[in-house]
């Protein structure tokens, strides 16, 4: 029925009401509607957005997508003796590479590789434009000349480490298949260089990654993992595997993931820092996404070890292991429970106090997703002492950290019991929260206003509203909320207005209720048109 419908006051109409047979909804249906309205945990807990737009610079903490094999002459023993004194210019290289004599080919290829390996300004563009790639790809297949294979693979590795176009040039010359075949080469150096090249190709993006996967690279790569190979080789394999796990839209296929996971579990037990780092990165990519993907990772049993690695002093281990666990707690309540059982909540308080703000932020993000769970999870969160460091971050953290901390509090407030809310308030959350109302971010401000509103409602239930209102006023909240009524974002303004109207209109306590002022009415009228309801859901994007 339209809200505007008005019945006439005339007695005539009053007597001619048609008779209807009303029924009520089944009780359980209504119950759902009331109790869980907008509070579904899955609504509040979301993964990183599928396509996340960034205005910022790419993060410095992330893992490298492509790597060039840089070297200086002295650390190049494999070819040192053979190449002593040979230095060719580009034209000589072109001629040499196109010659039919394998020795000339080798010398030219090696010269090209050296140019491509120098520390500064490697001439990737020149080499590509010189049209050398098809020949280099051909050399990969010359199994009679492993040294040539090695040099060609290395050169191609470094070309593929360049721009997307340069990687594309390598792929389009058909390099993937011969490189995969080289994974079975009896010569370990050749084999290792092929691993590296494939890593660079897969790192370019989902398209080339899937080309590498569909060329059946994974079984060969996995077969290379053994305790007898040199550590540098193992590192390369791990890194390439991580690139095969990386990137979305689409994610790597389920089958590939399933093949890699047992080996990743195995690598996670390793002692080497780099192997651990790249394994954790791989797991962080695999755990990014829907609950099914998270389930695959959780079922491997990696959580206890991951939580252990979260205490690592190495940033390159801590960052990806924390990221992985953070991803996992975006999953179902059960998956989160497994993470809690593995001890994540014992580690997070320390990480909230980590000297690096990027770590604080990821930790707060993970915590926010635990807080989005059922109240039992919230209880554990309290029991593990996460509230004091959380409040400290709200107070003194960097803005990006404060933002995550605010989300945590918001989720806590939405899903927590009254008792838990009391503990939250007692932990001193209100003052820093109120101070953040001046932050230049309308979303965060709206969330804080919603939190304040929820806390006031809880206080109302406990008949503590008056004290709560005073507390908020004391810490300067009322002034700030009043000022927000003039915010240019209509939702911020409306939320602020509602709090003032519902909780801070003077007088109730001493027996007078003030009349609503005319302009408020008109203002509200204008605002309600744009109002989209309270914020309860949480878009959990990449922290």
């Amino acid at each position, binding site marked *: 029925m339209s809200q505007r419908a008005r019945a006439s*006051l005339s007695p005539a109409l009053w007597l001619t009401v048609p008779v209807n047979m009303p029924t009520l909804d089944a009780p359980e249906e209504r119950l759902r509607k009331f109790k869980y309205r907008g509070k579904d945990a899955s609504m509040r807990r979301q993964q990183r957005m599928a396509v996340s737009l960034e205005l910022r610079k790419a993060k410095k903490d992330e893992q490298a997508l492509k790597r060039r094999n840089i070297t200086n002459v002295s650390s190049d023993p494999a070819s040192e003796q053979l190449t002593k004194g040979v230095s060719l210019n580009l034209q000589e290289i072109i001629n040499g590479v196109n010659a039919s004599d394998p020795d000339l080919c080798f010398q030219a290829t090696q010269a090209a590789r050296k140019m491509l390996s120098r520390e500064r300004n490697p001439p990737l563009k020149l080499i590509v434009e010189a049209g050398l790639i098809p020949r280099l790809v051909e050399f990969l297949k010359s199994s009679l000349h492993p040294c040539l294979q090695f040099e060609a693979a290395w050169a191609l590795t470094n070309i593929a480490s360049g721009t997307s176009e340069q990687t594309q040039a390598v792929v389009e010359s058909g390099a993937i298949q011969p490189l995969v075949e080289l994974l079975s080469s009896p010569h370990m150096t050749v084999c290792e260089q092929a691993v590296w090249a494939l890593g660079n190709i897969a790192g370019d993006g989902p398209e080339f990654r899937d080309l590498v996967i569909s060329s059946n690279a994974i079984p060969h790569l996995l077969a290379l993992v053994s305790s007898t190979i040199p550590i540098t080789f193992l590192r390369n394999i791990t890194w390439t595997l991580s690139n095969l796990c990386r990137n979305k839209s689409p994610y790597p296929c389920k089958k590939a993931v399933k093949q890699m996971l047992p080996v990743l579990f195995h690598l996670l037990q390793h002692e080497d820092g780099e192997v651990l780092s790249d394994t954790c990165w791989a797991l962080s990519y695999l755990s990014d996404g829907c609950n099914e993907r998270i389930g695959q990772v959780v079922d491997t049993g990696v959580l206890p070890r991951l939580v252990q690695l979260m205490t690592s002093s190495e940033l390159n281990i801590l960052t990806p292991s924390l990221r992985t666990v953070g991803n996992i707690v975006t999953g179902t309540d059960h998956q989160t429970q497994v993470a809690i059982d593995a001890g994540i909540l014992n580690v997070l308080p320390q990480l909230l106090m980590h000297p690096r703000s990027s770590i604080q932020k990821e930790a707060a993000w993970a915590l926010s997703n635990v807080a989005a769970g059922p109240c039992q999870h919230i209880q554990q969160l309290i029991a593990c002492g996460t509230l004091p460091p959380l409040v400290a971050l709200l107070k003194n953290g960097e803005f990006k950290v404060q933002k995550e901390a605010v989300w945590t509090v918001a989720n806590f407030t939405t899903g927590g019991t009254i008792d838990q809310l009391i503990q939250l308030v007692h932990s001193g959350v209100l003052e820093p929260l109120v101070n953040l109302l001046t932050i230049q971010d309308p979303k965060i401000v709206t969330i804080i206003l919603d939190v304040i509103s929820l806390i006031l409602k809880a206080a109302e239930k406990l008949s503590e509203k008056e004290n709560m209102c005073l507390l908020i006023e004391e810490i300067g909240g009322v002034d700030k909320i009043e000022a927000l009524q003039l915010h240019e974002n209509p939702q911020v303004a409306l939320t602020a207005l509602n709090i003032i109207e519902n909780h801070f209109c003077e007088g109730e306590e001493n027996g007078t209720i003030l009349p609503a002022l005319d302009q408020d009415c008109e203002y509200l009228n204008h605002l309600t048109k744009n109002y989209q309801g309270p914020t309860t859901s949480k878009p959990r994007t990449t922290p």
Partner: protein
Amino acid sequence: MAMELSDANLQTLTEYLKKTLDPDPAIRRPAEKFLESVEGNQNYPLLLLTLLEKSQDNVIKVCASVTFKNYIKRNWRIVEDEPNKICEADRVAIKANIVHLMLSSPEQIQKQLSDAISIIGREDFPQKWPDLLTEMVNRFQSGDFHVINGVLRTAHSLFKRYRHEFKSNELWTEIKLVLDAFALPLTNLFKATIELCSTHANDASALRILFSSLILISKLFYSLNFQDLPEFFEDNMETWMNNFHTLLTLDNKLLQTDDEEEAGLLELLKSQICDNAALYAQKYDEEFQRYLPRFVTAIWNLLVTTGQEVKYDLLVSNAIQFLASVCERPHYKNLFEDQNTLTSICEKVIVPNMEFRAADEEAFEDNSEEYIRRDLEGSDIDTRRRAACDLVRGLCKFFEGPVTGIFSGYVNSMLQEYAKNPSVNWKHKDAAIYLVTSLASKAQTQKHGITQANELVNLTEFFVNHILPDLKSANVNEFPVLKADGIKYIMIFRNQVPKEHLLVSIPLLINHLQAESIVVHTYAAHALERLFTMRGPNNATLFTAAEIAPFVEILLTNLFKALTLPGSSENEYIMKAIMRSFSLLQEAIIPYIPTLITQLTQKLLAVSKNPSKPHFNHYMFEAICLSIRITCKANPAAVVNFEEALFLVFTEILQNDVQEFIPYVFQVMSLLLETHKNDIPSSYMALFPHLLQPVLWERTGNIPALVRLLQAFLERGSNTIASAAADKIPGLLGVFQKLIASKANDHQGFYLLNSIIEHMPPESVDQYRKQIFILLFQRLQNSKTTKFIKSFLVFINLYCIKYGALALQEIFDGIQPKTPLLQSLIGLFELPEDDTIPDEEHFIDIEDTPGYQTAFSQLAFAGKKEHDPVGQMVNNPKIHLAQSLHKLSTACPGRVPSMVSTSLNAEALQYLQGYLQAASVTLL
């Protein structure tokens, strides 16, 4: 239909545009109508654009540009399901020409076109207007700053929404696109403009244009950097911040203005740069850290060298706020901790900005309402004093001891200055009091004043030595600012100053009600009001009626006299103090009631001519209610005296339809009627038919008061209504029907219905009962809300008690099968308590309100006792349901159990069994 782009059409259009400027509405209106009637035609906007470009007549040019902008505003947006109001060809043509046109037009027209571009941009940019950015950016190279400023202004109006919109994929895609096309050219323009500023350092007019550009560029910087720190600006932070820093320290005599009020270009630019620096400091701390110390120094030097003129206010308060936000962050603590730094901030930044300036003095005397609002109610967010206060609090976070120490020295020296020559140096004392106040108050609320004070300041000592002497001086009109300061001191430190001192100050405050200065007597009234609301132990008021008794007469006299002082005839603080005094003094005021009620009715009569102060009016009605209650509590018969005094004014208010007052009048009448112990007086019955007039019920503000009044009528006069006004019963039910149709007012409808059921003789409503239920069921089916169901349940219970379960059963039999209702009833009982307000219910009253209406304001002292018609009869509704069902089954044995078992679902059945067991009954 298309209009030709012909000279003839241009001529016609010119004629009509000319007519729209005619002062005579008989000529103007038809012309406006005509233009609106043809604006749907193709080429109409192009004709306007042609005119604004080529017309010989400047007036027509401007008129065409305004008409064009309004046309765009009305028509450009394509609303779903509505026809496209501008044809595609015109849209394309407009977009192709408008930027060029704007940039080549004189300023007056440029502004209109720039607005039009923003409106179009809001709809079409970026997808449907891909060239816009390139076109704008290309103009940067023109070197013509008239053109460049036009582009910058347009860009600002397009981009400024980035400052307040929520992050979304759509928004960020747009920002990314803008950054890609705009960030580099903007940066180059910024650098080039700054270079030009030094080239033209001696050319005032060139500088003015260049600085306008710099202001716009700085504003664009803020918009583009608001959502997140873009990669481009991170890479180019050096360029931007170095230049911002230079600009902050720059001064040029040619740019200084003589105007004392209006901020000049330099001030505006520096103020925006402070905002930009604050944005970076707040959001991008990690990246900005290395620039921050330089900005702190620059901004602080800026503060030290900036004068007291009003034109610098925004700049100064922005700059101080920047320092305040930085100094409370732990990792910048070191920038402030040096004793010399602290001293110099206190001395050169805080103290000067706390001084009472000429402008404040002016406001104190001539614009006291504004002054009070700023000083008392905290609407001083942008003032220098407030900013200085915030900086004190910020510094106290880490340096409370040193800061208090430094300021104590200042306070003492300022008080000494004052003592030397009060009439010349009174401002020093004002600043001293202000300093003490801002230093001492750590937390403050309206209700309790200061709740946490700095322990380093001895508030009582200061009160006794420096505040009381001023208030004790015989002349209440001497040094009004200091008087106001002293009274305010009492107000805000009322929780810190011991009661005996407060008691001493009460007669002093009463005395100051006579002060001529509006601020002083208002503060005195407000302070008394606040003191009278203070609570002591056991939650009783801190001051008892007995303690105030010695001053009753002088208090009441002075309060009412204050209402006759110039400028205070509708002073809400005084009226509130009157109300509060009544409430505190209770019986002690009875001897004065005849005079008081006369004065109040006179006031009521006077303000009802033109009600303009809602708070004042509200407290006045509260005071009237209090007079009635206090008097009639002791002597109920006195109600007649009040009716005599008030009804004349009330009649006038009702007859003149003074909308603001009608809800109050009804509430006071309810109170009077309820005070009567016997049957309803005939004077009330004469009013009864008028209360049912639909027009009264159209105003939502009237509804609660009218319902309350009708309830009073039903309570006191149900028999009279049944016998003498039975023909009005359908009208009464009509009101009920109207009310329950609205989600906002349905509970009011139930109040009325419940009163009807409870008080009216059953036979008088018999014939309507079935329709009542049908209406309720209809509403239940069509738009059911939690509130409605709760009210419905209460009603069902009341009905059962009044008429018996059998009667309820009969009604149900007549309308619908029983069991779904029974099941629903059980469902309702077992529903978890729902205390959330569903979104759709939250704002109904506003949605329901067509246009402006007076809101209802409940009078607390007209208050009605909670009425429970059921009382002890039904303690437990579940048991009551079981018992009622039992009764029903006794009446028609065998039917109920079978109905129950076949129609209820298992869960409901189980609950019902529980109720039956608890009530120890069985269904027969």
